């Protein structure tokens, strides 16, 4: 398998009310300088990718689609002048419906993007306003059409449930309309309230009206059943795809394999080390310009930690963790290390166990953390 590469574009038009990702209002920054810094960072790690082919490339954010056409050309320029893509490489680009037009779509295709991820989040205008999104539901649908017209044959829609003021009916309606569009892939997330965000603040102060836990669980359950019975494979806790259209790049994360990440806040895992860049754009560029690595956090997981991570990431995929794969990687048998935990979890009805693999049961999916905890050292 070739390399998995991630590139982060940390700029947005404005921050959504729930977001705690590294992202900044684009207007205040020198985007050109940032792109140049990206190129320099890639060169700093030349040894890691020179002479190797790239299997998956993922350009995420922030809002990568906030880049102007000129900036997009610049970005693709610096990518293609360094990386050699495999013939059937998966190249994903994240787009926000409020920032895309036919021209940009064309550029993306030329740049080699063959998978588009649209951050729709909701198809209900009320909800979108509450979330602080910059687009309407109509704009999201239009963006989808334009993407198809531009020739994209692999499109993902991001959708959220468990939103404040959202009823089960409203959620079901959104999902039905999304499925009607026939995207190849859907990422379906329950809202997580993060401290330090406007939602987090509202929650602290007690004026956030979230659906009850039962309702949220029900939304997740319904989503899974509906999508599964409409031709989508529920292949990861929050991800659904037509057969063969699973996101190969993300699978690299869940299989705890190596990947390279570039940009403010991006993470890499290679040579047994996990490096996370500083999320601060200015700091990132300053370090790069001084020829220094912009790493803020460095971890070298020991064997026990590597195993634990392989488990709690691997079990996110609903096919679970294969015994043969585990043994090949660690030279130890899965049952030798985790036999007791596996029996316990099977007893609780959270895990399924066959001779080849272990995986989350239907009951286990919404309670996945209870399962994951057991595999920590």
């Amino acid at each position, binding site marked *: 398998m070739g390399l998995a590469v991630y590139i982060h574009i940390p700029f947005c038009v404005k921050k959504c009310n729930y977001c705690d990702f590294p992202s900044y209002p684009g207007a205040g920054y020198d985007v050109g300088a940032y792109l140049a810094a990206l190129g320099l960072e890639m060169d700093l790690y030349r040894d890691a990718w020179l002479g190797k082919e790239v299997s998956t490339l993922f350009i995420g954010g922030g809002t990568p689609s906030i880049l102007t056409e000129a900036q997009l050309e610049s970005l693709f320029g610096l990518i293609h002048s360094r990386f050699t893509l495999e013939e059937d490489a998966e190249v994903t680009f994240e787009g926000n419906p409020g920032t895309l037009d036919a021209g940009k779509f064309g550029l993306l295709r030329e740049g080699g993007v063959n998978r588009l991820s649209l951050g729709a989040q909701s198809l209900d205008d009320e909800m979108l306003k509450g979330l602080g999104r910059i687009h309407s539901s109509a704009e999201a649908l239009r963006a989808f059409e334009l993407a198809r017209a531009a020739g994209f044959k692999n499109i993902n829609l991001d959708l959220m449930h468990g939103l404040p003021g959202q009823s089960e009916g409203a959620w079901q309606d959104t999902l039905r309309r999304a499925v009607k569009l026939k995207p190849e892939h859907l990422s379906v997330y*329950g809202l997580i309230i993060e401290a330090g965000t406007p939602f987090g603040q509202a929650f602290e102060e007690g004026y956030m009206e979230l659906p009850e*836990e039962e309702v*949220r669980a029900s939304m997740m359950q319904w989503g899974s059943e509906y999508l599964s019975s409409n031709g989508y494979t529920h292949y990861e806790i929050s991800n659904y795809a037509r057969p063969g259209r699973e996101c190969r790049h993300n699978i690299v994360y869940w299989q705890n394999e190596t990947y390279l*990440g570039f940009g403010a806040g991006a993470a890499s*895992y290679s040579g047994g080390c996990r490096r996370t860049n500083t999320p601060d754009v200015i700091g990132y560029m300053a370090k790069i310009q001084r020829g220094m690595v912009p790493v803020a956090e460095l971890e070298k997981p020991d064997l026990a930690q590597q195993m634990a991570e392989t488990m709690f990431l691997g079990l996110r995929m609903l096919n679970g963790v294969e015994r043969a794969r585990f043994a090949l990687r660690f030279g130890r048998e899965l049952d030798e290390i985790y036999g007791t935990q596996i029996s316990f979890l099977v007893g609780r009805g959270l895990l399924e166990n066959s001779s080849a693999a272990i995986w989350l049961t239907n009951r286990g999916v919404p*309670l996945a953390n209870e399962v994951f905890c057991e595999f*920590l050292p």
Partner: protein
Amino acid sequence: MGEASRYLRNFCIIAHIDHGKSTLADRLIEYTGALSQREMADQVLDTMDLERERGITIKLQAVRLNYCAKDGQVYTLNLIDTPGHVDFTYEVSRSLAACEGALLVVDAAQGIEAQTLANVYLALENNLEIIPVINKIDLPSAEPERVKQEIEDVIGLDASEAILASAKAGIGVEEILEEIIRKIPSPQGNDSAPLKALIFDSHFDPYKGAVSYIRVMDGKISKGTKMKMMSTGRIFEVTEVGVFVPSMKMVQELKAGEVGFVAASIKNVKDTQVGDTITDAENPAIYPLPGYRKATPMVYCGLYPVDTADYGDLRDALDKLHLNDSSLEFVPETSVALGFGFRCGFLGLLHMEIIQERLEREYNLNLITTAPSVVYRVNKLNGETVLVDNPSNLPPVQEILSIEEPNVKATIMVPNDYVGGIMELNQEKRGTYINMEYLSANRVMLTYDMPLSEIVFDYFDQLKSRTRGYASLDYELAGYKESEMVKLDVLLNGELVDALSFIVHRDKAFGRGKALTEKLKEIIPRQMFEVPIQATVGTRVIARETVKALRKNVLDKCYGGDISRKRKLLEKQKEGKKRMKQVGNVEIPQEAFMAVLRIDD
């Protein structure tokens, strides 16, 4: 009597908490140069972090000071620091026996507190010379004249020569030292007589073994002495004798009148009994020194390790703590819900909390403490009377004729303004009014007869909060009284959890049951299934709550940059689980067992 003892003085400091005795002790140490300014960490004698945090002293420490007096002579002063809380009267009594005098420290604004009174009487009973010291005179609210009057009126002690001081500001320190020399008698005792040394405290040192703190009454002791413990007859060879300066310093010998420590490679903590007399096996004394007032535990609770594999470690830890705290009692017991553990006896609630924290902190044990209980006297229909310190051991209702509960005589000092509120509180706590006395224009002393179980249950905190901290409490056992007591049981998911049971007065059963089930509902985390919580008296369910089943506990997103953060989140969840005890099918946090204590009545 040796010449040397002329220049020796043994004294301790008696004071209410916060009246400044530790600060004063620091000043004395500093003034006499025992530690340089640089070496002084605030309140040196409180070496444990826990004590420092709470601002109270638990452990006795003894310090030898060398003071060059105005008369040109160098005097050796042994200062013994003492605890101030109502729970530790016994500890105070032991330090008193090692001294000839005591500094009575009274806050110039607060005046005499109930605890001060109790300890002063104890000191007077022990024939100690008492030097009144009025502290914190630098504060604007100080009223030294009033306090002097209080001392004379309430204790009957001559306060005309009381020393006015401010330990914080360093005022009066020299006067105190001079007064100690002038008024406190030098120790009596004959160094040529057979050895008699009183063990008033000890600690366990991993290299030296059990180290006993002693006051030599007669004779001498040095390295090589074959010392004999008079209570057990066991003989040990002394490896080291020394003094505290405040750290441990070896000396050649300790003579009559002196205070210090002795080490003899004693491996088993049970071989040094606090209160025992040490003598010389080769020239033994005939009679041991008179005994102490033995402390009676008032409050019991069950202590269980969360992980049953830690049982041995818990036992060892209790053994070690017992060495430094002979008032701690413990015997093994079993609970259906919790497995093997210990029934522990404490002097009071604070004592219990401190031991629990020390076990968790110093010995790294994850513990479950059951609700504190007092000892009930149960008179059975068959004529037998049994003492019950564990609610689960209460005989079945049909066998019981009557139940008696322990009562205490409680002395409460409170400012005038709060009298009404406290009388109300005492009423709520089933107290019976005995007496009210005005100590001064603004301070009242209330005496009540109250059930000990009510004191144990949240009384002290309520007292403090209703009087904004100004009230003080002292209590002593005052016999048993018949009472209508019932046993309240708790069922979780239909199963009786014996460790949650407690004995309560019939009239309070419903209120407590309801409050407890509500509290448990908050504390017990959602499980994979619904958990009904029921409080019952006999077969009657008097309160019920339900913990709904957990439906969602999952991290929706997890991509490259998230992994470290999500792992930490999972680790935190896992940590939370470690504090859970599996009881039947239900996971219960350790705090649940103490939930009984913290509910408002």
